[in-house]
């Protein structure tokens, strides 16, 4: 780890003043679950680390006048999970439960989870986020890499596990800065992008901006769920994931939003899958069809074709889970669909 200056501002404005417009110069520290490891590996070498953990305004969960829920970026994952106002978002809580590491749940924050860097091993081993414009991934070991949205140089998969669930629910985010009076509220999905050149990030956030809140919409009676296919019970990234939020009337899907995780450089919104559901009764067959539609344009790399099936299954199981049509398996929790 390189030596750095440490700052712990008490307000958002102070934090913005400490952040540099020059990429890489400053880093925001929330729980540190991701940043510290990257700094130890010297993948991130900021001159200054801005610890936002002491900023009270971003540590709360509050309802707004439209019954939306403002979740501070520095709220810890377990605080979210334990909060009485969050029970109406089962998909998000399912993901937090699936992170299944007490350390990550209690140290990791909502904002940090959404903005964590990709776990691509070429990136983490210092080869750059795009790793030779994607060539290292194409010619190398890509078993965990993208199967969608991978025709450009970015082949990594978006790391956030919460993003698919939150995007499916229509979450927005409040971004403060760069100027002290500047703020904007944007759809969460617009925070993510697929970099085209080395040096660009997978987030649209500028280095002198601060993600302060996630705004979850009021309860609209949606059926929602997330499903992650994981290799083991640990905190390792899932192999594929999907989240779904559906408006259902009389057993028939009226509207749906389906978002896949761990399959593309961004959380992958699958409108074709949503269309496949619309107007259809909820059933295993329609869920399966939605899964197939979600992956119909998949472009697996040399070693990750298996992820196509896993992502299809994730979509199907997320839909069935949202519909209450799954049964958790026996003692050790293997999900089995009857």
């Amino acid at each position: 780890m390189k030596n750095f200056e440490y700052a712990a501002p008490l307000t958002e404005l102070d934090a913005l003043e400490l952040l540099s417009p020059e990429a890489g110069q400053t880093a925001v520290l929330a729980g540190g679950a991701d940043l510290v490891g990257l700094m130890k590996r010297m993948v991130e070498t900021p001159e200054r680390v801005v610890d936002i953990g002491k900023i009270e305004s971003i540590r709360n969960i509050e309802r707004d006048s439209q019954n939306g829920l403002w979740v501070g970026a520095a709220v810890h994952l377990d605080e979210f999970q334990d909060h009485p106002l969050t029970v109406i978002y089962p998909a998000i809580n399912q993901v937090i439960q699936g992170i299944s590491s007490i350390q990550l749940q209690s140290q990791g924050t909502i904002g940090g989870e959404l903005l964590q860097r990709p776990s691509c091993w070429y990136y983490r081993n210092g080869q750059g986020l795009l790793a030779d414009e994607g060539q290292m991934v194409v010619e190398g070991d890509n078993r965990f890499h993208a199967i969608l949205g991978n025709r450009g140089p970015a082949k990594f998969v978006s790391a956030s596990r919460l993003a698919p669930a939150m995007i499916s629910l229509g979450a927005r985010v409040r971004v403060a800065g760069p100027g002290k009076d500047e703020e904007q509220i944007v759809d969460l999905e617009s925070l993510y992008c697929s970099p085209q050149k080395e040096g660009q990030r997978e987030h649209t956030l500028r280095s002198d901006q601060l993600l302060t809140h996630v705004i979850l919409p009021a309860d609209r009676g949606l059926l929602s769920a997330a499903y992650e296919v994981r290799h083991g019970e640990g905190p390792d990234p899932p192999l594929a994931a999907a989240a779904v939020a559906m408006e259902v009337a009389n057993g028939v899907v009226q509207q749906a939003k389906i978002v896949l995780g761990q399959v593309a450089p961004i959380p992958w919104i699958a409108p074709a899958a949503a269309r496949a559901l619309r107007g259809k009764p909820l059933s295993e067959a329609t869920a399966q069809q939605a899964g197939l539609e979600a992956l119909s344009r998949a472009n697996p790399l040399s070693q990750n074709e298996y992820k196509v099936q896993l992502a299809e299954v994730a979509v199907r199981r997320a839909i069935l889970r949202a519909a209450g049509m799954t049964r958790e398996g026996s003692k050790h929790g293997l999900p089995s669909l009857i």
Partner: protein
Amino acid sequence: MAEATYSWPPRDKSEIIGKRVSRLDGMDKATGVAKYTYDVNLDNQLIVRALDCPHAHCRVKSVDASKAMQVDDVVHVHLIKPIPEEGLEIRAHGTLIAAVAAETEAAAAEGVAALEVSYEMLDVFVNDADLETAAKLKRTKPAGGGIQLDESLGEPGDDDDEQEWEDKIIQQLLDQAAHVVEGEYGVDAITHCCLEPHGATLRWNGDKLEVELSTQNVSRTDDGFAGALEITADDVDVHCDYVGGGFGSKFQPNYWGIAAAKISKKTGRPVKFMLTRDQELKIGGNRPSGFIKVRLGADSDGVVQVWDSHHWGTSGFNGSTVSVGTVPYVYVPKNYRRKATGIITDNEPSVAWRAPNHPQACALCQTAYDDLAAKMQADSLDIFLRNLANIDTAEKADLYAQQLRIGADLIGWREHWHLHGQGTRRGSVVEGLGLGIHKWGGTANSSSCQLKIHPDGGVESYCGTQDLGTGTRTVCAMVLAETFGLPIDAVKVNIGSSTFPFSGASGGSTTVGAVAESHRRAAQDAFVELAKGVAQKLNVAADSLEASAGRIGIPGGKSLSWKEACGLMGIRPLEVTSNYKRGDESLLSGSGVGGIQMARVAVDLDTGQVQLKKMVAVQDMGLVINRKTAESQIYGALIMAISYSLFEQRINDQKTGAFVNSELDHYRLPRLGDVGELVVHFHEPESERKRGVIGLGEPPVISGGAAISNAVCNATGVRVPVLPLTPKRVLDTLRTAKG
């Protein structure tokens, strides 16, 4: 008892031996009181970080340290090896090139980043599964082989080509077989993944080197330092109270330990040099891979009559693989031919990993036996039982048969068994059963124990052994306490220093046997001396005296308290040093154990996820000293077996050779939720107990791989050939099977 014929008390007279005793240092370990090498910091120390080679195969042409030396607080830069004019060839990703010593860890890391190295890239090959390409690239080395045939088959005639004759005979035997299985199986290379990385903190005290070393070889790393530093072993003291995992990888000072000593000498400062996590995985130790092509032929009962195999794999750039001598494994048919080929890959050479060669050999061979059962539409347990005909002695075969039956009861074999691929499907989930059997030596290592008994009753022992996780301190204390009839906390056990009497390295399941030998001998020798005084005082025969419940005396008759007995010695403590030499005949320890393991798994056919539901280990191990730590050994081994069967693998980028998953965020390991229910059964009839202590560290890690692979095959009806059985591999295999 007063005669020193070294032996154990019978089962019904053992007060401590064989009981469940919690580790004496368990609380210290759990609360952080125990200091591991990594925890040791010396006054005025320098921290060392090393530059490791980012390329798998290259030549280092030059190292420019000028910028590194300009980093604040960097004190010294040390080249691990001199760079000759033509460059220094590097054969493994992660090989250390240069080390930077600094006042702080951050400065050392910055110094490393500031080193400027010029590399010349060389050809890379890391595909250890691809024998054909390896041969084309001249990356193979013969690794032994041979043929064993029943005498009735004769020998090649003078005019016969030996190879052709062998081929013909093997083919004839296969043609005669009622059932033939041809299969390919494999086990990937894994790393030792020690929680505490390798390393040392050391200082020179004049010409004497004092080393805190994370080691499983306290008594015998001094010579490694001495040889490399051109001093003698008496000028090196090695100390290690606790080791955070070794598994066979921590027998040596290693070249970074030597570098630390050189840096310390050069700078005149104490030095702390521990590998980083990714360096630990890259160079701290790895287990060789193995892949096999097998043909076996069985008679109509499913007893294998002929085995023909060729296996290959890599131990890194030195180009070896799983030892040919371990194939075929446990079951040795009367006719077999085996051949092994090492593959030279650009990886760090492997080192011993818990039960070297056996886990791979077991998984490579006994999967084929399970495929035989599948092909015959037979119960795998029956096939494994029937093939006990091919075990070298009837006694051992009988022991395995007993163990298999016990295991079957414990896992509910009859209740859960179904033919391969024909179980009930619940949703997308199918379940299956599998098994494997194993063997190990476990001969006690050489060991010496110095025992001091003070006139006030105090007891202390000194032995240059170590606690690799075995619970060594507790075992030593139990043996002494049993012998003296004292509570365990009345004896003070001292281990972990090369200044103590010699005790062998903890490798090969040799430690509990070793320290049980030396401590029992020393205690029995001391007791003879004590008994002389007591006998005189009580006016009884010395050989009629026994020690029990804090007293020495005639059972049911006259006695003295321990303290009174010790007081008879006068003012000088009694000092006894007793030795055991590995291989000497002894009633206290023995050799050769067997065990069986069974696994029940659930497989999700849609996702390829394998979930361990239950694992059963039935193990014989001679006499058990500490039931609790012995059980822990087996639990730990089962978890390691689950780990290499379902999770762990070294992943090399095939183009660059880089070991891409060398951090724990990418190197997958099981968590508690992945382990399932573990059941441990000690098989300890009197016939086994009377053989004395036999090492237990390795055997229970061996057959879990075969058992899990076989269980997955039983569940799905298809063989996922290579461990670990990741979701990707399971799905890829299922897809291929579907066509």
